[in-house]
């Protein structure tokens, strides 16, 4: 009996370890953040992009309206790629696009908008990147679909036609 316990428990231990490693193999190694989160939008104080006046975040977002908060920067190359899609979204006028200018030189940012157009209804400034952290963002570009002061969906990386279609579906 004694002699049987040892091999038996060894087999069980290896069985457990094998099972855990096998399960681990199936998991994706790439970290994928949760994008379908229903979270309240954060409250913060910031500065308006053009006037430089202090503003409260509650001034930007009304209830019962759909907003797309877009984090952008003039130094960010993918932002340049997604800009035409923001312009096309703005044409339909169904969604209010709010811009968050991320760690940027304001002069460069203004030139960026002059060159490519301004799809934003309002723009506010995040000089040190702390507001982006408040929003749970990873970097630029990133967009948040907002309804009733809640984040419905998060788009990490540049928008493309497929995502614009998806946003249009949400709006309908």
């Amino acid at each position, binding site marked *: 009996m*004694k002699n049987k*316990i040892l091999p038996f428990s060894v087999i069980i231990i290896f069985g457990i370890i094998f099972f855990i490693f096998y399960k681990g193999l199936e998991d994706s190694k790439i970290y994928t*953040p949760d994008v379908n989160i229903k979270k309240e939008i954060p409250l913060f104080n910031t500065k308006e992009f053009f006037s430089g006046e202090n503003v409260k975040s509650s001034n930007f977002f009304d209830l019962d309206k759909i907003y797309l908060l877009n984090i952008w920067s003039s130094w960010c190359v993918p932002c340049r790629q997604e800009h035409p899609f923001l312009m096309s979204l703005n044409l339909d006028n169904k969604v209010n696009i709010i811009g968050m200018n991320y760690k940027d030189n304001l002069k460069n940012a203004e030139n960026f908008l002059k060159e490519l157009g301004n799809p934003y209804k309002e723009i506010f400034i995040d000089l040190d990147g702390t507001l982006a952290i*408040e929003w749970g963002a990873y970097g630029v570009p990133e967009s948040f679909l907002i309804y009733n002061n809640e984040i419905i969906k998060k788009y990490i990386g540049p928008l493309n036609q497929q995502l614009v279609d998806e946003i249009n579906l949400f709006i309908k």
Partner: protein
Amino acid sequence: MKFSRFVLIFILSFSFSSVNADEYDKRNKITKNLRCLICQGQSVYDSDSEFAISLKIVVDQKLQEGLSEDQIYEYFKIKYGEWILYDPGLNKNTYILWLLPLLIFLIGGAIIYKSFIVRK
């Protein structure tokens, strides 16, 4: 009078520097336990990415607001999920991680006890 004032300033200056040092240590400890989510295998402390730089500023702000270490971890957990912590808490997703070593230790101990000590 002058002397006592001098002593007071001396003591105060030391106490302030120790407060700063404490805060600095605390900030380092916290940022070492936060994962830089856009880097590979780096903590926020080690990274100089835009994300990590901003996160360090936020940690400083939260410390100045008087939040404790655990409250700061909780804040980032709400914003980014459990993945941002290098030291995950015990919950339904991590119980195997915490209990398996203990289980293996117990079973191993039992085997050693059975086969060596009882045999004697």
